[in-house]
């Protein structure tokens, strides 16, 4: 076959991909897809090359369930889902929440422990609403500090956003209503400073016995229980599928959540085993199929670091005391919403000002694509990656394979091998650049 004919064949192969079914016709391709999807959704990271290859090769029965179990038991699950919890609990040291650094760290540790131990939702909410005392010594007391408005209305709004998710695009108005309706429960909450710098005690002033956060908790478990228990379910649906749970799904998932004792992991096991979760990627604009999501800012940042070997240094020189996070800190582990980077800002990390889910912006923008196309920093990181000894000594075909497994968590197909090893003279660094700029890499599909 001549070059031109071969090229036409390759073009056809690419054209055929318009139909996704074609790209996922093999078990191997579907396994790779699920392996990547589960790692991203449960641990907020890409699977390593070894993990993908082992998963594809594995012949054990119920291997997907086993993967889900092992990922849910991992440290990284707690890291990643704690980040999500910290988003709606507004964990940040600076304006407008002003928890201050020491308090941020103890509060984050407490939240992460709740995720790691799979604390039941009602127990966790109770612990937060009952928290009194020092912001440095009683982590839970920070819940009643983590609001932009330190008024009964402000606290009622913050508590409603955290515990009473209102599934609507126009939730702001609903929360205005809640902030007035439940303000009385927070009317006695007060704060005083101590002689320790930036320490603050949360306590209750004198007042009527039914005007307490405890009474609000009773309301959550009583008349408001339907919304209260649906809240984590909607959040999980939002995080995984990008929308609030439709009624049918809500009822189904609520069953799993209830029978699991209001713990998240049994709910997640149920979700990950569902046919909706195992569906092939959706075609944009069409209803069927699994919806793609642009990787969270933190996850994308970590993915680039994992692939290229780059490291990030996070620090904050305002407010005092200054914070310097240990080197090589993963972005999803940056506890403080006030500590950020140009990258995280660019890719829509939530400011944690309100705790609304909509604060996280996973939309793709021209500025983001400019960065991925052309950032000098990224280009340097790709350069360092291909110079790495283990990679540099591979033969060209193996290099292509390695890059595909690193970026896209799957081996290349024949057309892709052809494109990058035969047809054109493209350097490994350039191949990496191409993969970095694919929707397949930038999105969880």
């Amino acid at each position: 076959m001549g070059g031109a004919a071969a090229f036409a064949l390759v073009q056809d192969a690419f054209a055929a991909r318009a139909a996704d079914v074609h790209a996922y016709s093999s078990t191997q391709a579907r396994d790779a897809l699920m392996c990547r999807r589960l790692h991203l959704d449960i641990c907020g990271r890409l699977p390593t090359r070894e993990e993908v290859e082992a998963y594809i090769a594995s012949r054990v029965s119920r291997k997907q369930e086993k993967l889900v179990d092992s990922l849910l038991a991992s440290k990284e699950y707690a890291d990643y889902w704690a980040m999500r919890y910290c988003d709606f609990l507004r964990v940040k040291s600076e304006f407008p929440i002003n928890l201050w650094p020491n308090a941020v760290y103890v509060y984050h540790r407490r939240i992460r422990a709740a995720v790691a131990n799979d604390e039941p939702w009602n127990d966790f909410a109770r612990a937060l609403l009952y928290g009194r005392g020092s912001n440095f010594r009683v982590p839970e007391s920070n819940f009643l500090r983590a609001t932009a408005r330190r008024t009964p209305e402000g606290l009622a709004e913050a508590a409603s956003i955290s515990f009473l998710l209102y599934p609507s695009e126009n939730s702001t108005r609903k929360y205005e209503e809640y902030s007035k309706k439940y303000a009385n429960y927070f009317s006695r909450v007060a704060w005083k400073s101590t002689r320790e710098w930036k320490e603050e005690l949360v306590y209750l002033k004198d007042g009527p016995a039914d005007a307490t956060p405890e009474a609000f908790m009773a309301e959550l478990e009583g008349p408001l229980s339907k919304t209260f228990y649906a809240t984590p379910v909607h959040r999980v649906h939002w995080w995984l599928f990008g929308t609030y749970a439709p009624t049918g799904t809500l009822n189904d998932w609520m069953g799993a959540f209830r029978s699991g004792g209001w713990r998240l992991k049994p709910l997640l096991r149920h979700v990950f085993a569902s046919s909706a979760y195992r569906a092939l990627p959706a075609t944009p604009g069409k209803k069927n199929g699994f919806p793609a999501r642009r990787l969270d800012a933190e996850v994308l940042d970590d993915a680039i670091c994992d692939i290229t070997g780059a490291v990030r240094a996070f620090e904050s020189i305002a407010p005092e005391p200054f914070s310097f996070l240990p080197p090589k800190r993963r972005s999803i582990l940056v506890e403080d919403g006030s500590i950020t980077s140009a990258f995280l800002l660019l890719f829509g990390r939530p400011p944690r000002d309100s705790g609304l889910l909509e604060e996280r912006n996973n939309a793709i923008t021209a500025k983001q694509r400019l960065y991925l196309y052309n950032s000098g920093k990224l280009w340097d990181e790709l350069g360092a990656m291909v110079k790495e000894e283990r990679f540099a000594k591979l033969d060209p075909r193996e290099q292509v394979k390695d890059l595909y497994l690193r970026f896209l968590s799957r081996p290349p197909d024949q057309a892709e091998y052809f494109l990058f090893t035969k047809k054109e003279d493209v350097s490994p660094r350039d191949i990496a650049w191409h993969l970095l700029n694919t929707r397949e890499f930038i999105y969880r599909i």
Partner: protein
Amino acid sequence: MSTPAQTKAVASAPRKPAQHVIEIWQWGGPCQLETFDPKPDAPHDYNNGLKSIKTNAGFYVHEWLPQLAQCADLYSVVRTLTHPFPGHEKATYIMQTGRQAGGGVTYPALGAIVASMKKKDYEGDLPPFVILTQAKGRFSEVGFLGDAYAPLVTGGDPNAAKFIVDGIVPPGGLTKEQLAARFARCERVNRVAVDPEFEAAGAAARRIIEGPAAETFDLSREDKAMRERYGRTRIGQQLLAARRLVEYGVPYVSINYSGWDSHKKHFETMKRPTHEMDQAVSALLTDLRDKNLLDKTIVWMCGEFGRVPKIDRQAPWNGGRNHFPRCFSALVAGGGFKGGQVVGKSDETTDNVKDRPVTPVDFLGSICELAGIDPDDRLPNPKGFKLNVMPPASEIGRLKEIYA
């Protein structure tokens, strides 16, 4: 020659609002005494024995500003900016947004406001708000306006051999052809279905990379004399880049100009940067005038506050000046601001405002007003907040006395 009747008609026609704003943000807070409010007659502990010079408009500036003294007809000086916040963050916040920090809403900075209100008149590929070269720290510059008005932060160094704008100028010195081949190949390395949103973002990015927008940042297109005129300094070349961005059409350009936080050894450290500023800003103003751009471009320059008038001779400051928000200065020019004027009067040391205090709200509101944005009008926003562009002006009011 126009007849008197024609002149009158022109004069009474409503002024066209400014189309562009260049903000020169002196991060850290420059000293009012060594810039636009010199006090040569104050005790030595205030002026360190330094003098002032008379400008071509008749008022005086510090002796470190000889070039700005020669073109004072092009700008006016506000000597009585005042607010209560001595910390960088809260001070920056109020000087950038017109709002006090706190209260649960993160407000947009002036750049994002102007970008959002002027975007309808702007057709360029570059975002309507560009920052040279680093973002202003942690405060979100967009606030509740959302990503659409987030600034493009250039990174890079305009004074380097090549101004590498992160994201726009491809690293590795690719030619246009190599770039085109890359993008073409990129289209084919795509297993998953095409997503219109992803493609649109990519197409917008490629228009910037491959089109005239990228050339805006290519300062080598300016002749050598012009580059020298601004000064071969970082600030000089940043202001030259700012002028090119205005020519391209960008509504709001902000220069994040750090280096003014002179707690220690103020006089030893500030002389050179002040000279660089003098050259760069006077070059910008005269260049904008020469190119007939000054009329439609507002230039404003100040920091988040000024500096304590009395020099702190104690260790560890050793002749330094700390933060001082009670009375400090700013420069405004073009776009409907008169030149050659002085607003407000400080006392004999600049410790206090003596006459006509100017609040941040009145100051920023004036810029909005001249840019054709009514500060008392609603600020449309994706969150549905019912808020005006700026809080209400003070009783003393906006800077109407220097509106042309």
